């Protein structure tokens, strides 16, 4: 490590924000960026200039984040945007997702890579339908940490009972969805209470400010506790004099640890071998762990190509019959009988939608008939048949090897986001006859 990096070496937290239209999400994001000194003078000047031109009295912090012409014209956020800021302790990548009902897919997109989700509620309204939807999406995508930010505390006289009631209701609901870690913070994004600086108005609150929590929440998982999963992206064969017999499998560890000498199985073929060498971007190493990108060489000469999975036990069982929870992303509905492409890790195969078992009403979590297909923003359960076997893990076990996308073969449109297995721990429709298909 160089001297400068040593002084500033930090971890990275990817998180997503969700909030309803008037909950003040843009103000919160603006406040986080502004108070962490991530908004620079020229950006602020541009916002002040644009606000004045619109006849607004004060600078509109929402203009910092609404980047597209249509968004500024309509005063709404229509697409996921990514923001970057840093403190001395940590670097942050924020997926800023719009909160409209019709943009469920955007929250799904933002949550797919997030390790933490901030759900914003208006203290005056408490937990509403939208709040439950946001909690459900965070649970569905297995976002490990959820923060409830109870905003506009200034408008309820900074009253503890208001906060306590909302926090209790939300925490119970999130727990019922299987969310393991929920932290509630009372804030005022407009006044700056408990966002970056501790509030002078809420002595009764003993917890961290929102930023302090973001800086200190443990990120990542312990790779040594998970089985190794290494999807092969690309075969490296230099065929040069120096590296005449070099045949390396390039990829990014989706989970777990690989060591030289480890016994591994290549899926779907089932061939077994031993890790002979690991190159960490050109430098030999003894071990590698998720999410490092490395190149692996095996002791045996096996036919391996892009799309194969090098895995350590316990192994996923390759199957052509996939049951999954999906969020439909495209305006083009998904119907039973549709022929699509399915991209899972580095493998793309043809697939058929055999059954749309049910749609999930994301507000009540009730199952509804899926007979009429899935429309944009619908979440449902499907059964797919693939042309080639895939080695999927259950999404609840592995967000990377348990996820896939469906693609329209006619024009390449990304249709659907898929998560192998059931949606929620509490929702069960397991049909014994399907279980047998997995073997």
């Amino acid at each position, binding site marked *: 490590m160089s001297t*400068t*990096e040593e002084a500033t*070496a930090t*971890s*990275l937290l990817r998180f997503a924000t969700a909030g309803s239209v008037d909950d003040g999400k843009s103000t919160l994001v603006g406040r986080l960026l502004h108070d962490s000194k991530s908004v*620079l003078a*020229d950006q602020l000047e541009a916002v002040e200039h644009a606000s004045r031109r619109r006849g607004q009295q004060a600078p509109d912090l929402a203009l910092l*984040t*609404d*980047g*597209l*012409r249509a968004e500024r014209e309509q005063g709404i956020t*229509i*697409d996921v*945007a*990514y*923001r*970057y800021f840093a403190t001395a302790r940590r670097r942050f990548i924020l997926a800023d997702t719009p909160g409209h009902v019709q943009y469920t*897919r*955007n929250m*799904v*997109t933002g949550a*797919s*890579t997030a390790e933490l989700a901030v759900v914003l509620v208006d203290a005056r309204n408490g937990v509403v339908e939208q709040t439950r939807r946001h909690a459900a999406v965070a649970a569905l995508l297995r976002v490990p940490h959820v923060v409830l930010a109870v905003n506009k505390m200034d408008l309820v006289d900074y009253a503890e009972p208001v906060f306590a009631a909302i926090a209790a209701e939300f925490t119970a609901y999130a727990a019922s969805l299987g969310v393991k870690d*929920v932290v*509630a913070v009372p804030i005022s994004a407009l006044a700056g209470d408990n966002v970056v600086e501790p509030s002078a108005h809420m002595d009764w609150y*003993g*917890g*961290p400010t929102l930023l302090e929590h973001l800086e*200190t*929440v*443990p990120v*990542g998982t*312990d790779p*040594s506790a998970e089985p190794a999963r290494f999807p092969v*992206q*690309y075969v*490296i*064969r*230099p065929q*040069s004099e*120096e*590296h005449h017999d*070099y045949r390396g499998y*390039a990829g*990014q560890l989706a989970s777990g*640890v690989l060591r030289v000498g480890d016994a591994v199985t290549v899926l779907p073929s089932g061939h077994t071998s031993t890790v002979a060498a690991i*190159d960490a*971007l050109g430098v030999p190493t003894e071990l590698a762990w998720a*999410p490092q*990108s490395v190149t692996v060489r095996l002791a045996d000469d096996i036919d391996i190509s892009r799309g194969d999975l090098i895995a350590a036990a316990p192994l996923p069982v390759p199957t052509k019959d996939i049951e999954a929870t999906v969020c439909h*992303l495209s305006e083009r509905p998904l119907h039973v009988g549709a022929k699509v*492409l399915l*991209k899972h890790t580095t493998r793309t195969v043809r697939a058929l939608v055999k059954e749309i078992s049910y749609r999930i009403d994301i507000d009540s979590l009730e199952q509804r008939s899926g007979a009429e297909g899935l429309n944009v923003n619908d979440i449902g359960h499907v059964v797919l048949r693939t042309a080639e076997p895939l080695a999927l893990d259950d999404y609840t076990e592995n967000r990377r090897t348990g*996820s*896939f996308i469906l*693609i329209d073969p006619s024009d*390449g449109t*990304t249709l659907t*986001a898929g998560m192998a297995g059931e949606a929620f721990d509490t929702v069960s429709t397991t049909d014994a006859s399907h279980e047998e298909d997995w073997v």
Partner: protein
Amino acid sequence: MTVTTQRLFRAEDTPFALSHLDALEAESVHIFREVAGEFERPVILFSGGKDSIVMLHLALKAFAPAPVPFALLHVDTGHNFPEVLAYRDRAVAKHNLRLHVAAVQDYIDRGVLRERPDGLRNPLQTVPLLDGIEAGKFDAVFGGGRRDEEKARAKERVFSLRDEFGAWDPRRQRPELWSLYNGRHAAGEHVRVFPLSNWTELDVWQYIEREGIELPEIYYAHRREVFKRDGMWLTAGEWGGPKATEPVETRQVRYRTVGDMSCTGAVDSDADTIEAVITEIAASRLTERGATRADDKMSEAAMEDRKREGYF
């Protein structure tokens, strides 16, 4: 309220922690390899600026010990810094790469493009770029764009589909989930790929330091003849500056970005080492583009509009 006291998580707490630079590097390498696995003819847009130099460095690491399986494409505005062109040619020779050049000057000479009254050539790059992509039949084009640069870019995907006119339609972008990038495209379309999407300017500089990457010397403080136009220090030269009313001074400056000489400003600086540059950037109250790019200031949606036309 399960407010448990959270312990500060530090890299030393686990042998399996990755620093933010390691995490960004792993992600970028994954993106390079996905493109190598899925496309027929990828190309790296290479300007000789720090972002494209970092891109090339990451590509070299992604395929080691094999060579980079991509060619380079340089859109030459004709107003390049000589130090940058020299760097480009050295890099091409050192790594035994293939270089394609699309030159704005050729288009002006042939009468296809007309010099703008303000002399800016950055906006003229789009046509040669798109022609270069078409002529090379490139189906994936790596760009060094970062989402932190500009608010229209904050909406940019890692894999961004462009139609047969090279146009970006922000309303029709494909959702991008997990690390599952969709590279499907029809003949004539191409995909712009941004492996540095999640990097910030400071990340790029810290990585340059950590990896010991050489840059064109104009990134470090040096004495140079400059003149002031629209509040920026521009380098005097054959490209058309200064006017009679713009006195030339010799100043200690450096560049934060490297682009066309007509619109890339230098900043006053004594930072002549990488450590000093990083300290200076960390303390700066101006964004990279705000400090040094004239073309972004033209309108509130300047970048979005140019991207819609096919610009990076």
